[in-house]
């Protein structure tokens, strides 16, 4: 089986989808000739022509608005917002338009659009290239929100997203593009070459939306994570020797509550880890759901480890990032509770 980095797997998902379905079109800033600033669309314009993969004017609302019009026509656009931090001008189109076409027209018009955007920090991107805005999307009815943590899932989930009849926000943790980063920024960079989930079929396959997966079985505590934090949580479990069960949510909306509840009922403890700021973050939703469904199984308060409630800083990147040290400390404290 071929080995791919996460960015190669994402490109392969679009390639396979464009090959199978002439209605799939790909566009965004620097996406056409150049192949994207992270190389996510490299070679697609050469292979499928300028009318199926092209560059656009720098206008995110325009990108999403045009995609909505195309989807209403019958195409299946898969568009790129260059950084998740750039999505704000498109927020109206995403939340009040894409998310609601089906509902407000009673199914007369639908919006099968996939919006890819690199998310998260870890690359010294400062406050406008590091944000994790997933909770701004999970709060919007009509959207679906996906965050892959590895090449295999990224390809299968992106194909599922493109084939989905409703809009999907596809957040790509940019620090994972080229390797399974576990938060140890001072250690040599590891690549996907040695990781089992770097094995990616060249052909079409799907990973279903709405299904979480247990990455590391354990009995002491359930750690809910997605994206980069899955690798941080796994590493922390090994380093602390705490037998954590790490769940990779993969899709935040719709959420696989069943897998979460099953695990927390078994371990009796629950920690949520995300890179996004703490207050009103997706961790708050997860904590609320866990206490609603597992209250009498909990042996300790639910703990959230997240980005601090500050803008993402530049120099203090690693003080901000909830890496293994912070997660490990919180895990130990939780086990003492």
């Amino acid at each position, binding site marked *: 089986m071929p080995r791919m980095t996460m960015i190669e797997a994402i490109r392969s998902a679009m390639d396979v989808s464009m090959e199978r379905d002439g209605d799939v079109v790909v566009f965004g800033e620097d996406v056409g000739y150049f192949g994207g600033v992270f190389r996510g669309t490299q070679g697609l314009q050469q292979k499928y022509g300028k009318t199926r993969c092209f560059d656009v004017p720098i206008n995110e609302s325009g990108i999403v608005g*045009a*995609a*909505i019009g*195309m989807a*209403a*026509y019958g195409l299946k656009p898969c568009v790129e917002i260059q950084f998740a931090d750039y999505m704000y001008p498109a927020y*109206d189109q995403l939340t009040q338009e894409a998310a609601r076409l089906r509902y407000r027209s009673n199914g007369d018009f639908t919006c099968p659009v996939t919006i890819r955007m690199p998310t998260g920090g870890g690359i010294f991107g400062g406050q406008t290239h590091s944000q994790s805005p997933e909770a701004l999307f999970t709060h919007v009815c009509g959207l*679906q929100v996906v965050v892959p943590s590895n090449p295999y899932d990224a390809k299968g989930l992106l194909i599922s997203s493109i084939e989905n009849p409703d809009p999907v926000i596809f957040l790509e943790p940019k620090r994972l593009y080229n390797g399974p980063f576990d938060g140890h920024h001072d250690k040599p960079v590891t690549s996907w070459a040695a990781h089992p989930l770097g094995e990616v079929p060249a052909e079409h396959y799907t990973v279903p939306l709405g299904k979480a997966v247990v990455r590391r079985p354990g009995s002491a505590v359930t750690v809910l994570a997605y994206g980069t934090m899955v690798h941080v949580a796994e590493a922390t479990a090994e380093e602390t020797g705490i037998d954590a069960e790490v769940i990779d949510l993969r899709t935040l909306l719709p959420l696989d509550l069943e897998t979460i509840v099953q695990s927390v009922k078994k371990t009796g403890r629950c920690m949520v880890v995300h890179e996004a700021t703490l207050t009103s973050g997706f961790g708050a939703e997860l904590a609320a759901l866990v206490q609603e469904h597992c209250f009498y199984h909990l042996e300790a308060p639910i703990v959230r480890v997240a980005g601090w409630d500050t803008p993402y800083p530049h120099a203090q990147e690693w003080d901000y990032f909830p890496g293994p040290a912070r997660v490990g400390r919180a895990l130990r404290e939780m086990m003492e509770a």
Partner: protein
Amino acid sequence: MTDGQGNNPTGRLSLHVPEPEVRPGGKPDFSNVTIPKAGSVRRPEVDEHPEAMRDLAFSIIRVLDREGEAVGPWAGSLTNEELMEGLRHMMLLRAFDSRMLMAQRQGKTSFYMQHLGEEAVSCAFRKALLPGDMNFPTYRQAGLLIAGGYPMVDMMNEIYSNDADPLKGRQLPVLYSSKEYGFFTISGNLATQYIQAVGWAMASAIKNDTKIAAGWIGDGATAESDFHAALVFASTYRAPVILNVVNNQWAISTFQGIARGGSGTFAARGLGFGLPSLRVDGNDYLAVHAVAKWAAERARRNIGPTLIEYVTYRVGAHSTSDDPSAYRPKEESEAWPLGDPVIRLKNHLIRIGAWSEERHKQMEAEIRDTVVAAQKEAEKHGTLHSGGRPSMRDMFEGVYAEMPPHLKRQRQQAGV
């Protein structure tokens, strides 16, 4: 502060905030609106270079003159039968508005928006399109549905949010949707549909199809960023789209000078994008149709998009939620120099011997009966506060193609 000569002797800055010519209590004044003679504006070939027709952004294309004659190079796009049909559509829309406005006042629905004075714009435009074309309208283009033959009862069912509402009570009154009739679901927020129209048109071109799109926006909403997005995308990809700006002078209480700024016209906004930008008398059914047909041909021949500014006047309130006498003189609509679109077309038809006062009265009565009958039919299915209404279960449907587990749980909690 600047003196009359453009000097600023004190060096102190001051902010300019535009004001309309007249406020309530004042005498209406449209002396600043230059109205060229009907028939005086040239009609270029559709493939003329946009740079060569910049003059059209600063004039007003008019066909009907003061005597009701159709004159000049833009005349002759419609037969007498088509003109009589056009008159009927405008009268239907006006009668429909009048009944629904009354229904709102009677508490049968929450809200309404009428077209009074602007009927020609959407009614005439619709006749320049072909089946399969798609409009991306605002809330003041119901003439697209009326002139397209959409059932009036279904419009009323939507307005009443009753149990026959095609949109299941999910949308505000007048925010219709009909793919079949080339009418994109109206959002209710502003300008978002403009760039969507461009995207739809791009899709038609990507698929090498033959269909074209039309985007709609009001003068006030041209200030939105999505207007700019639409123009730049339309220009870059030469999308087969007609970009309509309905300049009815007022954005709720804000006069058009606030959105227009220092630019001479709204049509002129298109010039920087290299778009042919035409200004047309929006109260002249013949002129609206001729210009729309010209732009549609340009799109269909794959030459590219066109921007059209319809110069008109919003005679009524913005909606049932505002009182225009609070922000403009009551007599202003009567002073509007481009007249009433229904009367102008009627006079033209009488002038050419195709119509009479008597036939007009007959049609008025027949239309009133048609609208009243439709209203009775709709009210059998209920109004907002009485009779049939969409079910509570409907509220949970259609958020997604397939209902996700969390929504199923909530529906269960709601007991439906």
